[in-house]
């Protein structure tokens, strides 16, 4: 049953006339043409579809539109403001915190939510916070350093 879904996406209002049961990941990637959020496992395990909803990291493959109705959604495309990269993005770039780049948007968004909650995390807190994000290329050590640096920016 189509209905009007309204939420804020990367700072701008969005209104969709569609089914509330549709999955956020696919609506972002199709209707809204934001392909930075990636499908990796479809089961909320790998974290490559991580977006931030009302300040918290959410697996977009596990969230439906009803869940984001009235909320504020930030995706990787909304992290840079006025052409300025977010400190996390700069730190990932500087430290080489990626290789193939496919898990990177989800990793950055998860780290973004982590730093919102814990602005100066210890290394143990970073490891714990990133534990559910998978990276197959093995950029872990550099990702941790990038998050540490961004937390001191």
């Amino acid at each position, binding site marked *: 049953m189509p209905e009007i879904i309204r939420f804020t996406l990367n700072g701008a209002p969005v209104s969709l006339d569609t089914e509330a049961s549709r999955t956020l990941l696919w609506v972002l990637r199709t209707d809204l043409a934001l*392909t*930075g959020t990636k499908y990796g*496992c479809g089961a909320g*395990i790998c974290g490559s579809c991580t977006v931030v909803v009302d300040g918290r990291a959410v697996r977009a493959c596990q969230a439906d539109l009803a869940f984001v109705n009235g909320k504020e959604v930030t995706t990787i*495309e909304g992290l840079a403001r006025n052409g300025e990269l977010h400190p996390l993005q700069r730190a990932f*770039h500087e430290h080489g915190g990626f*290789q*193939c780049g496919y898990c990177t948007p989800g990793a950055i968004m998860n780290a973004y939510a982590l730093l919102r909650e814990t602005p100066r995390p210890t290394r143990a807190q970073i490891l714990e916070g990133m534990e559910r994000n998978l990276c197959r290329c093995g950029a872990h050590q550099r*990702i941790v350093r990038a998050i540490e640096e961004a937390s001191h920016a």
Partner: protein
Amino acid sequence: MPDTSRVGRRDFVKALGGGILVVVNLPMARALSPAEEMQRRQRGYPDDINAYVHIAEDGSVTLYSGKIEMGQGVMTSLAQEAAEELGVSLSGMRVVMGDTDSCPWDMGTFGSLTTRMFGPAVRKAAARARLVLTDLAADRLGVARESLTVEDGVVYVSGDRTRRVTYGELAMGEQILHEVDEEAVLRTVEEFTVMGQSPRRFDGIDKITGRAVYAGDIRRPGMLYARLLRPPAHGATLTQVDTAAAAAMPGITVVNEGGLVAVLAEDPERAARALSLVESEFSVVEAEADTESIFDHIVRVAPEPDTGEQEGDLEQGRRNSIRTFEATYYNGYVAHAPIEPHTAVAEIADGRATVWSSTQAPFSQQETIARAIGFAPDAVRVITPYVGGGFGGKVPGQQAVEAARLAQITGRPVQVAWTRAEEFFYDTFRPAAVIHVTSGIDLEGRIVLWDYHVYGAGSRGSDVFYDVPNRRVRVSGEWGRAPEGMHPFAVGAWRAPAANSNRFAAEQQIDMMAATADMDPLQFRLRNTKDPRMIAVLEAVGEAAGWDPAVAPRRRGRGRGIACGIDAETYVALVAEVTADAMTGVVRVERVVCAQDMGLVVNPDGARMQMEGCIAMGLGYVLSEEIRFEGGRILDSNFDTYGLPRFSWMPEIETVLVQNDDLPPKGGGEPAIINMGAVVANAVFDATGTRVFRLPMTPENVRAAARD
């Protein structure tokens, strides 16, 4: 070479909008191509050219490479090589990769070959382009070539900077095609300003902003998302299918043609729902082997071995041994598990097919797709966007063939993006392997006997680089041509194929002999090799790790191990420190130090990233990863049961690049992963006194080993 290809190249330079195009031959690549690949190239497309460098009228330089970027960083390092030889700054470089229409033929991105095989072609093309441009400048400025200096894309009269012309000005109004057969003088290490540096990666900004485009991000007008009916097991056949309920859904296109059963929709979720309405029955063949029985099965069905290496007399070796050692090593199947599953978008219009594919081998996919849809190869264009990890798993291109066939049948652009379950099902796994080793040492702790037999994995990494007078290496079944019936599903190249299995066995066997000889394992290795490159990496890793000589096992719950090997012409040695508990079976890798001699290093930070990636990825096959199966039925379908390495598992990783600038660049994508099994197993032995002969070292397997 047929004339058509020359015309094709002239058309190509016209299509580029003028400027100067320099193309170079690389005869070495021909030697590497199998005959089949050679035949594929006889089709009008430039068949003898390996690298293009184009200088546009605005002075920008584009490198065209049939290689692809899947995270290994070659987009950046190849640009460095071109910029260095051409005399331009890196910021003026563009790189186009993996597009069969504009890039020179390439056999595929695998085997850690890009830097050692393709890099030289790029340097030659760029060096020659610099000469072409300098000659043009000499004409323009009315001086001899020798009196000119190139800096940052500007040609000066040496000593008079006011007399100058830029590359862009030289390319202006030109349409020059220059073919290179001759040798060009390359810049030396002392002259390098771009090579040997570690600039920020070319793909960095795209990847941290979400702008990087992967195959699944391609959108075409009218594109349909397809979901395909899959069998429950390999070897199963479809006996009955009913698509009526799916077809009744609005907005669903059903295809049932030539063994392809698919549902397609403009919304991927709708396609998934429609697939769940397809009723099907399959007949499944009875399982011949499972996760546990596979090892006996492999040995039972193994073909007569190929003898790779034989020296001396094994009987003499036995007689000279004061002690012989016999052991059997095992590893199961592992998945490539790139985070991006296989994906392709295909569009067919005006008799031409365009396929965007996540692939390591765009040119072989072009052939495969063309055959599948009955097109001539040059009517198929494969474009490779960024690839979200490959590791050898994205050489076959089943998903691209599926997308192309469905595009042909439906007349619409089609995306096929495998689900994680499809990815686990159709992956070409690293083969399970059984390795049997008999070895012996003499009174002085020298290895005098080495009788080695590997089943299932293949030969890579089985060469004996220790000084063993009496030795034999036998190989039953290569991963690339697995004997029918040996493996219940497809196997393929998995990052340093076969070498991970072989080094796991060989370097534990070495360690076992060292322990019995009451020798420090590093000293034992040094005693048994005269290879200066091996000695250098062993000494370097020992120094970096702070290695104090000691005989293993020390049984302190903490331990350290060492292992070494050669892969892609690169020498590598690792030290690992672990904590391990034989009672619980829990192993934690605390620190890994890796020293590598890979010849001249084009991009040191990029090389280190590959070493770190090998170590991190390697932890998976060492500690947790194993595909569980019953016959052709794959029991792992997602990351909940198939555990990849996680952040909390990461050891401190330290990398050492052993300088060897006189040697041309060697491979970097794979060497550091090959010893991960043995280096951790050797450390576990030091910590607990338990030898683990089977990968992965799960708590269950370690406890079982401790009981034996």
